[in-house]
């Protein structure tokens, strides 16, 4: 019983899903933190170190660390040539989240980029589904 739950949880595709969701949460939190601490006039601001003063950044760090373990569980079972293109679903999730949660605007060109990404992901998903059958 526990063994089958464990195997279900360690499925590389489930791990990849958790990984991309946490990665999106982390980026949104980093942006909120960076927005609070931004001071472009400071010569050292490009290092990003002042961002560490924000708790949002630290929660983002925590989400990133957890998502790294999910990513390790993913690439343990999947080749990088499949897992990495599939992980690029974050390039849909992050602009959508920036639009919904941060109030950033998405141009029509950006929307068509998102549509193209969807197409590419579908093309990559098919050999990936075959790969799963072999697992």
């Amino acid at each position, binding site marked *: 019983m526990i063994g089958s739950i464990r195997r279900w949880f360690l499925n590389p595709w489930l791990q990849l899903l958790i990984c991309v969701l946490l990665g999106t949460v982390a980026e949104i939190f980093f942006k909120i933190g960076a927005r609070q601490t931004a001071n472009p006039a400071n010569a050292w601001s490009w290092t990003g170190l002042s961002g560490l003063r924000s708790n949002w950044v630290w929660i983002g760090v925590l989400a990133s660390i957890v998502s790294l373990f999910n990513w390790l569980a993913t690439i343990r079972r999947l080749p990088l040539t499949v897992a990495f*293109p599939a992980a690029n679903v974050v390039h849909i999730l992050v602009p959508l989240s920036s639009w919904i949660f941060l109030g950033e605007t998405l141009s029509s060109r950006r929307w068509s980029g998102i549509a193209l990404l969807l197409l590419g992901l579908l093309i990559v998903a098919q*050999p990936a589904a075959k790969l799963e059958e072999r697992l």
Partner: protein
Amino acid sequence: MTYFAALLILVTLSCFVAGQILLKHAMDITARENYSRRQATMVFAAAIAAFAVNFFLNLGLLQRFDLSYFFPFQGLSVILIALAGAFVLKEKLTPRLTIGSIIISLGVILVSMS
């Protein structure tokens, strides 16, 4: 966008690609029988170091630009990582995966041009 910002984005991207390849290499080492724990740890540490540099440069970029504007530049890493996976890690890169990766990269470029 200044040349300095473009250079920062390029360095950030390179650290990211190197980190991913090293991470996968470390996981491949642990999958071997009788692997050297020390070797796996070293490769893993090198991957984390590359990601750490990527993280701080990323935060610095975030302080200057909208997230939805510059984040997509990282998507160029799709092509780079697919190629590095095939040539460095000797993974199989099918024509379908190649076309899918190129379309994903194009999608990312389109998003980043906005």
